[in-house]
């Protein structure tokens, strides 16, 4: 018996698909290109990365839904390709979004069905289902059809379903996507509670703050490979030697952003829209004062508050991910 809950070595996955009808094109996407991971029992491990980074693909390789193009993975010591059934007995899988449930059945019927399917013994089912409905705060609504549920309720029902058979390893793929902030906080509490009871959790997310709050260790994935791995404190070091300038602005275009990016000493520059205003964030080398240059480049743009601050984990994440963006994109089109 292996002491690791999850082990992956050199995991790769290429999607082959055909698009087009009159002139079919074969497309190949290297979604995951060599992922090595070890997660110990009881860890709450985060897989953090932008959209399209390969998070979902990695999870599906680990939970037996996809067969790897190359590489190997084990869950609790069982091979995900050769010992599929042993692996499936030990894992739970929950993904974000509101699909994947039987909408015209009640929450209780959904759970009953999956309890049977996942092999929960008959005499335990009633108690287990009641327990889980309680855990995800759906008690009282369990007889209502799922089609009338809010997104947050569906998400909680997903989690209850994933836990029915007391999995040792739980895969959570962007569980808080599309959920309102209050529900997302409750969700994080539920996940933290689970990990506290000894369940190993692999959580994917593209929210830095979520990973920071929950995870003991985080792997930052971009472009199908792991770019950085460590505790949140360790990842923060990726922004060492930098400082951050934040400028509130109204109407910064792509051209201006490119100019700022090219300024000497500037390492990253990005714009986020918050309400009516934009926030321009500029990371620069700590020794260089770029403020005057940046403000000159923004000549003619209406500006609000200007703040200089130390880098946060979020900035470290941006630094890690953007390092990859300069490299080639994962899509290669090949004519059939």
């Amino acid at each position: 018996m292996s002491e690791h809950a999850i082990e992956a070595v050199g995991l790769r996955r290429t999607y082959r698909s055909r698009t087009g009808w009159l002139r079919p094109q074969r497309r190949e996407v290297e979604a995951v290109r060599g992922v090595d991971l070890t997660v110990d029992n009881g860890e709450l491990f985060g897989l953090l990365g932008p959209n399209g980074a390969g998070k979902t693909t990695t999870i599906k390789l680990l939970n037996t839904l996809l067969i790897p193009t190359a590489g190997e993975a084990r869950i609790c010591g069982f091979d995900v390709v050769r010992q599929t059934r042993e692996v499936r007995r030990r894992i739970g899988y929950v993904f974000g979004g509101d699909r994947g449930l039987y909408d015209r059945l009640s929450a209780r019927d959904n759970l009953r069905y999956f309890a049977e399917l996942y092999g929960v013994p008959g005499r335990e089912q009633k108690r287990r289902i009641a327990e889980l409905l309680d855990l995800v705060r759906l008690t009282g609504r369990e007889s209502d059809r799922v089609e009338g549920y809010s997104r947050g309720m569906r998400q909680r029902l997903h989690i209850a379903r994933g836990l029915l058979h007391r999995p040792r390893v739980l895969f959570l793929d962007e569980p808080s996507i599309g959920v309102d902030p209050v529900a997302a906080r409750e969700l994080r509490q539920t996940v933290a509670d689970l990990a506290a009871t000894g369940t190993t959790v692999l959580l994917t997310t593209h929210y830095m703050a979520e990973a920071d709050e929950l995870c003991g260790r985080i792997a930052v994935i971009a472009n199908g490979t792991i770019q950085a791995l460590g505790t949140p404190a360790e990842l923060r070091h990726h922004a060492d030697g930098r400082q951050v300038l934040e400028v509130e602005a109204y109407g910064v275009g792509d051209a201006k952003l490119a100019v700022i990016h090219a300024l000497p000493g500037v390492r990253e520059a990005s714009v986020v829209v918050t309400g009516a205003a934009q926030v321009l964030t500029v990371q620069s080398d700590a020794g260089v004062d770029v403020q005057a240059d940046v403000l000159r480049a923004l000549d003619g743009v209406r500006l609000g508050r200007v703040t200089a601050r130390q880098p946060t984990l979020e900035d470290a994440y941006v630094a890690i991910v953007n390092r990859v963006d300069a490299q080639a994109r994962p899509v290669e089109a090949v004519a059939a």
Partner: protein
Amino acid sequence: MRTLRMIAVGALLHAKQLSRSPFEIATALIVPVVQATLAVYLFRAGGEPGRLLEAAVGAGLMGVWSSVLFGSGGAIQNQRWQGTLEMIMLAPRPPALVVLPITLATALTGTYAMLATLAWGRLLYGIPLTFADPLAFAVAVPGCIIGLGMFGLLLASTFVLLRNANALTNTLEYPIWLVSGMLVPITALPGWTGPIAAVLPTTWGARAVREATTGSGPTWPSLGICLAISLACLALGAIMMTHVERRARAAATLALA
């Protein structure tokens, strides 16, 4: 025992989910009336009013068959659209056992069409519900349903491999009604259809149900053959299903891309 219970609970809950679809409800309200009417006029025109019940039962069986053909043939695709395919395939069970409750459920919801056709036949056209062997009828119908559900698994695993499954589904509906003798006796059909009819579980199921209705034969042999062929289909379907699952994991087709 546990597996049987899983299949039963699964089939019932899938039947519940299916029967609550607005499309199903609309179909369930209209089709049996049409079928009862069809049966009555077909046979009145043929000058055989004594065989009205047989015709109504035959029309009801057609309802079961349509439900299995469309429901089971599209079972995998439907689960994929709902986003539930990945979740059920993740169960630590052979894939055939995961899909069988769904195909049984399509046969089960089809049974409603059978009962409703008989009820409308009685109500609208006064067809007397006098079965030659009520007990045999009460066994043959569920037997036939289970058989068709098992046959459904073969359809489910075959159709998911075919590119033009939808077109095939549509073209299979009427020929199989006909060839299996659900409405017109097999003896009235051209000889070349005989061998095809002989290997279809629908033929033997329809025959068993007809024998129980009219007393034209002993029911049990036909029902036995129907179940035997269905079991063979189940075994073949199970092998195909394992292949299909593996292929889907390699080609990434369990989820909607």
